[in-house]
């Protein structure tokens, strides 16, 4: 499948099945469009010569009023070279890998530990319902946490790098247990030839020098939740007494990051219908001195007045464009910052197996509740039909993992003709479950935003390549 688009003055051609990305001039852009329009991929690939006389004549017929004949023929010749190299009009050759993927033996390599089902903020959009996850308030004990580490090691096969995310609610409400679990994991690394990558997601309320030092030493990544401008943040992220959290939290985040050196972190916000001009919030992060940024669209029921609706998409797309332009500008000024959804690795990105197997929820990645129950991911916690087992007994419902394992971009009809399928790998299972027709469906609004972000991420890579 070939996908063509124009963005920020660049003509971009994606050969979806090979992953090749091409920057082309107007002539080649139109030549590729005409060939795609005249022939389907099967016909092109059944041909022994893409420069055959009839094809040339048909393309010339369509384009000779617009372009010089020699230019058109040159462009056809270059298109032929790309086709021969397997970088244009490439046929899908991964379908044959599907049985392998469905049957593949997976090992658990990542856990999301719900260290606290409690929170000291009352964020209005929280899918964890202020930490309660459709259930009771609870803190994970160190005993359950250690059993989770044992479960992970026992189920991780030969995998060396293991990931444990401390999540909530607000994990720092149970900081002593976080410390104990980290120490326990570290104590087992040599014995089992494993390396733990710990991460933590926090709202920052409880940060202090001792916690900062611990996080900066032990956490491979730290996700700091903040929504941007003070008025935006304080509307959605108040304390339980209704007071805004911005002024209290920002200095704490700045203090943590000042001491973090070059280790990874994200300042991560959520945008809603209340701030469709969210590029201003990303810029606020940058102006506060942060340079590793993320801003996620809220995912919630349409009945909530702050939910993202279909009619908001044109404004959101414009805003993603504005954000790209600001980022390219700031980069030139030496004040660049990264944006999670615009990070794309075109030359060392994931292998095909990773792209075909998706996020790994229920198979490689599991969520653990404070009392040790296992769920496919943090967003399924509290849904009885998705309870997979517990850290004591292990997986007692393997059929749930099988269901997720056999779900990929080829089993999702909506992914078939989508150019972004190998970038999102079929999207978020929880979103499809909650807002689509099931795991093999998609969350359409989310897909449309993802496609826009992929387009912009690729455009920005191209812009930087051209400047080099």
């Amino acid at each position, binding site marked *: 499948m070939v996908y063509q688009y124009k963005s920020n003055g660049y003509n971009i051609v994606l050969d979806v099945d090979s992953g090749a990305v091409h920057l082309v001039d107007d002539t080649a852009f139109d030549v590729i469009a005409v060939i795609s329009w005249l022939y389907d991929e099967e016909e092109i690939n059944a041909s022994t010569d893409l420069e055959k006389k009839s094809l040339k004549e048909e393309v010339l017929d369509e384009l000779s009023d617009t372009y010089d004949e020699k230019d058109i023929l040159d462009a056809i010749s270059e298109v032929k070279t790309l086709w021969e190299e397997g970088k244009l009009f490439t046929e899908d050759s991964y379908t044959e*890998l599907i049985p392998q993927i469905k049957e593949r033996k997976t090992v658990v390599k990542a856990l999301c530990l719900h260290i606290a089902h409690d929170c000291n903020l009352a964020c209005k959009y929280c899918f964890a319902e202020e930490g309660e996850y459709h259930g009771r308030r609870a803190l994970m004990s160190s005993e359950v946490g250690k059993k989770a580490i044992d479960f992970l090691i026992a189920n991780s096969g030969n995998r060396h790098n293991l990931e444990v995310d401390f999540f909530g609610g607000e994990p720092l409400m149970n900081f002593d247990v976080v410390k104990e679990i980290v120490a326990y994991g570290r104590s087992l690394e040599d014995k089992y030839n494993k390396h733990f990558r710990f991460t933590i997601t926090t709202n920052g309320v409880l940060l202090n020098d001792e916690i900062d030092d611990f996080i900066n030493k032990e956490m491979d990544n730290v996700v700091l939740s903040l929504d941007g401008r003070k008025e935006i943040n304080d509307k959605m992220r108040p304390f339980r007494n209704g007071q805004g959290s911005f002024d209290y939290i920002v200095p704490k985040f700045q203090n943590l990051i000042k001491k973090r050196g070059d280790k990874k972190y994200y300042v991560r916000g959520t945008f809603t219908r209340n701030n469709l001009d969210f590029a201003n919030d990303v810029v606020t992060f940058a102006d506060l001195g942060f340079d590793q940024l993320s801003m996620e669209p809220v995912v919630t029921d349409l009945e909530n007045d702050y939910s993202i609706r279909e009619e908001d998409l044109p404004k959101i797309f414009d805003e993603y464009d504005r954000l790209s332009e600001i980022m390219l500008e700031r980069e030139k000024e030496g004040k660049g910052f990264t944006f999670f959804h615009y990070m794309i690795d075109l030359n060392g990105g994931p292998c*095909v197996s990773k792209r075909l197997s998706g996020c790994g929820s229920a198979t490689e990645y599991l969520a653990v509740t404070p009392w040790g129950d296992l769920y496919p991911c943090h967003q399924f916690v509290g849904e009885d039909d998705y309870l997979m087992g517990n850290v004591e007994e292990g997986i007692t419902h393997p059929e749930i993992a099988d269901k997720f394992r056999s779900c990929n971009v080829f089993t999702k009809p909506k992914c078939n003709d989508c150019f972004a399928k190998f970038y*999102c790998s079929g999207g*978020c299972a929880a979103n499809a479950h909650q807002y689509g027709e099931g795991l093999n469906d998609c969350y359409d609004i989310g897909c449309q935003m993802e496609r826009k972000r992929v387009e912009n991420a690729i455009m920005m890579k191209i812009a930087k390549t051209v400047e080099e």
Partner: protein
Amino acid sequence: MKHVKTITKDTYKNTVKKGGCGECQTSCQSACKTSCTVGNQTCENK
């Protein structure tokens, strides 16, 4: 080439040979938690 500049150096097909070790990061452990972003993960088996 005069009309085309290819930005990518490799194709997915070539990653089949080295792929599947699984040592790379799980996508939801980074910063999203509410979407799925696999394309921006980095291969750890270069």
